[in-house]
C-alpha cells in the first residue's frame, strides 16, 4: 500500500495528527484573540487524541483498550479545561473590556 | 405465542419486500442496495408523516380552541399540506443583505441532515433497524446535539437582534435539557445492560401473564419517562418551552429571516426531531415495537411502533393547545433545580430496583422514595416563590 511515500496507514494518521498539531500551535501563537488561543489548544488536544486512537488501532494489543481509554479521558479533561478557560476569558473581558492578549499586560515589567 | 404464518409474514412484510426487490440485482450489489432502499424509504415515510402531522396539529389545535382547523383544501382539509408545500416551494427566497450568506444557507441543511441521521438507529419493527449499532443510543444523542449548533448558525447569520436572541435562548434551553434527556436514558441503559436500541427493545418484549415488561410500568421507568417527555418537549422547542420561537415575543426567533423553502426545511427539521425523539422515547420506555398485551402480538410490530409514536405526537399537540408558555428563567430554573436532581435521584432508585431482586418489596420502596423526593423538592421550590407585588429587573 505505497502512496506518496508513506508506507503504512499508521504513518498517514500520524502525519495528519502532526500537521493538525502544528496548525493548532500556530493558531495559538499567531493570533491576538484569547478565544483563538483556546481554539488552538483544543485543536492540539484533538491531534493528540488522533495519535492515541491510531496507535491503539495499529498497535500490538487493541483488546486492552488502553489507547481508547486514554483518548476518552483526554476528551473529558479537554472539555473541562475549555470550560474553565472560556470562563476566565469572560471574566477578563468583564474587567478590562477586551480579549486581545496584547492589551492584557498590566502585570508586565 | 405462536402466531399463524400470515401474521408473521405481515409483521415482516417490509423485510420480505426489500429482499424481493434487492434480489433482482447481482449478489455483490445487494448489501449496498439494501441500505439505499431503506434510506429512500425513511426519506419518503417520515416527511409524509410530517405532512399528515401538520394538518392534524392544526385541526387538533383548532378543536381544542373551539374552532375548526383548515377545512377548505380537500375533504376535511386533509390536502392542506400539499397546498402548504406548493406555497413554500414557490415563495421567493429572501436573504438579508447584511447576512452571512454561506452560514445562512448551511444552517437549515445541517439541521435537516442531522435530524435525518437520527432515524438510522431506531428499531421500527422486528428486524427493522437501518443500522444496528452497538452504541446506537450514543449515536442518536450525538446527532441530537449537532442540531443545536445549526440553530445557533441560523440565528447568528441573520444579523438580526431577534434572531440572535431567539438562537441564544434556544441553545441555552437545549443544552440544559439535553443533560436531563441523557440522564433519564441512562437508567434504561443500566437495566437493559446495553446501548444498542434493538437490545433495549428486546429486553422489554416479554410478558408476565398478559402484562408487558415495558419500562414505563415500573416506578423508575415512569419517573424517567416523565422527565424524558419534559426534556424532549424542551429539546424540540415545543410548547410550553417554545419561547425561542414564540410569535408574540420574538417574531419567529431564529428562523425569522428565512423564507420559502429554507423555512420549510426548518419546519421539517423541527417536526422530524419530534418524530425521532418520540421514536426514541417509545424505544426506551414504551417497549418499542412490542404489543401492549400478550394476546395482541398478532398485530404487526411496525403498526405498534408507529401507533406509539403518533400517540406521543398527539400528546405533544395536546400540550401545545393546553399549557401556557414558560418564561426563559423559569424554564432554566426548572431544568437545573428540579429536573436534573430528580433524574439523578431516579438513577439511584433504578439501582435499588436492580439490586433488590424480584418481589413486591422493590415496588413499594422505589415508589415511596420517588414520591417522597417529588413532594420534598416541590415544597423546597415553592418556598422560594415570592407571591407579592411584582418586582421588575431591568437589563443592565
Amino acid at each position, binding site marked *: 500500500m505505497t502512496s506518496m511515500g508513506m508506507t503504512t496507514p499508521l504513518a498517514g494518521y500520524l502525519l495528519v495528527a502532526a500537521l493538525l498539531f502544528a496548525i493548532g500551535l*500556530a493558531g495559538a501563537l499567531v*493570533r491576538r484573540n484569547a478565544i483563538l488561543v483556546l481554539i488552538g489548544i*483544543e485543536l492540539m488536544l484533538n491531534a493528540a487524541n488522533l495519535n492515541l486512537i491510531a496507535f491503539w488501532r495499529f498497535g*500490538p494489543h487493541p483488546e486492552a483498550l488502553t489507547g481508547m481509554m486514554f483518548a476518552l479521558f483526554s476528551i473529558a479533561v479537554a472539555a473541562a479545561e475549555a*470550560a474553565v478557560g*472560556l470562563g476566565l476569558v469572560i471574566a477578563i473581558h468583564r474587567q478590562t473590556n477586551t480579549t486581545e492578549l496584547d492589551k492584557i499586560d498590566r502585570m508586565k515589567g | 405465542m405462536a402466531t399463524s404464518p400470515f401474521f408473521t409474514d405481515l409483521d415482516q412484510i417490509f423485510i420480505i419486500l426489500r429482499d424481493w426487490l434487492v434480489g433482482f440485482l447481482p449478489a455483490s450489489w445487494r448489501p449496498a442496495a439494501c441500505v439505499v432502499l431503506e434510506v429512500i424509504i425513511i426519506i419518503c415515510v417520515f416527511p409524509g408523516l410530517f405532512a399528515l402531522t401538520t394538518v392534524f396539529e392544526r385541526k387538533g389545535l383548532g378543536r381544542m380552541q373551539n374552532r375548526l382547523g383548515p377545512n377548505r383544501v380537500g375533504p376535511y382539509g386533509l390536502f392542506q399540506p400539499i397546498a402548504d408545500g406548493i406555497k413554500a416551494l414557490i415563495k421567493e427566497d429572501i436573504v438579508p443583505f447584511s447576512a452571512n450568506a454561506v452560514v445562512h444557507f448551511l444552517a437549515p441543511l445541517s439541521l435537516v441532515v442531522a435530524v435525518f441521521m437520527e432515524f438510522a438507529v431506531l428499531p421500527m419493527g422486528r428486524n427493522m433497524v437501518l443500522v444496528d449499532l452497538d452504541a446506537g443510543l450514543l449515536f442518536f444523542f450525538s446527532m441530537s446535539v449537532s442540531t443545536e449548533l445549526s440553530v445557533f448558525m441560523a440565528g447568528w447569520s441573520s444579523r438580526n437582534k431577534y434572531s440572535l436572541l431567539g438562537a441564544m435562548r434556544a441553545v441555552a434551553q437545549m443544552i440544559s435539557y439535553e443533560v436531563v434527556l441523557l440522564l433519564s436514558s441512562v437508567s434504561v441503559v443500566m437495566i437493559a445492560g446495553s446501548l444498542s436500541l434493538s437490545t433495549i427493545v428486546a429486553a422489554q418484549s416479554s410478558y408476565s401473564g398478559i402484562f408487558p415488561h415495558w419500562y414505563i410500568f415500573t416506578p423508575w421507568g415512569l419517573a424517567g419517562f416523565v422527565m424524558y417527555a419534559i426534556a424532549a418537549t424542551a429539546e424540540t422547542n415545543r410548547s410550553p418551552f417554545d419561547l425561542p420561537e414564540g410569535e408574540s415575543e420574538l417574531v419567529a426567533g431564529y428562523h425569522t429571516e428565512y423564507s420559502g423553502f429554507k423555512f420549510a426545511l426548518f419546519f421539517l427539521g423541527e417536526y422530524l426531531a419530534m418524530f425521532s425523539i418520540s421514536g426514541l422515547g417509545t424505544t426506551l420506555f414504551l417497549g418499542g415495537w412490542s404489543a401492549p398485551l400478550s394476546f395482541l402480538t398478532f398485530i404487526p410490530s411496525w403498526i405498534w411502533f408507529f401507533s406509539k409514536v403518533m400517540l406521543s405526537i398527539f400528546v405533544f399537540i395536546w400540550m401545545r393547545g393546553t399549557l401556557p408558555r414558560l418564561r426563559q428563567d423559569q424554564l432554566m430554573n426548572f431544568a437545573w433545580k428540579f429536573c436534573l436532581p430528580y433524574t439523578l435521584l431516579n438513577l439511584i432508585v433504578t439501582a435499588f430496583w436492580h439490586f433488590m431482586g424480584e418481589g413486591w418489596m422493590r415496588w413499594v420502596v422505589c415508589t415511596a422514595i420517588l414520591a417522597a423526593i417529588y413532594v420534598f423538592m416541590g415544597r423546597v421550590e415553592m418556598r422560594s416563590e415570592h407571591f407579592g407585588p411584582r418586582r421588575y429587573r431591568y437589563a443592565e
Partner: protein
Amino acid sequence: MNVVFYLLAAITLAGGLAAVLLKHLVHCALATTVAFAGLALLFLQLDAQFAGFAQILVYIGAVAILIVFTILLTRGSELPKGGVFSRTWFVGLVIAAGVFAVLAWAVLESVRGIPQQTAVPAVTVHDIGNALVGRYVLPLEIVGLLLTAATIGAVIVAMHEKERRQ
C-alpha cells in the same frame, strides 16, 4: 490509505487551517466544528466507534457551543483595529513549522518498526464499560472529581458579582 482517509484528512486539515486563518471569530468557531467533525469521522474509520460518537457529543455538542457563547458574550463579533495577527506572528509560524518538521521526521523514520495492517479489534461498548469500572476505575473517579471542580470553578469565575450592584 484509501480515498475516504484522504478526504477526511483534507476536511479536518482544511477546518483547522480555516480556524486559525479566518478573520471573523464566529467563522473560526464554525471551522473548528468542521475540524472536530472530520476528526470524529477519522475515529470512526479507525473502528473506535465509542470514541467517535463521544467526540461528536462532547466537542461539537459542548465545546463548540461554549466557544460560540464566549465569542458572543465578549463582543467578539467586532473586528479588532490592529489586525487579527499579533506582531510576532512570524516567530510563531517558524516554531510551529519546526515542531511539524521534527514530528514528521520522527514518524517517517520509525515507520519500519510498525506492523502493516492488524485485524479489526472487536470492541463492544460492554468491553469499554467493563474496563471503565474495572481496570480504569481510579481515573474514572478522578475525572468525575475534576469535572465537578471544573464546573463549579467555571461558574464562579464567570459569574456576575452581585454585591457591587446594590
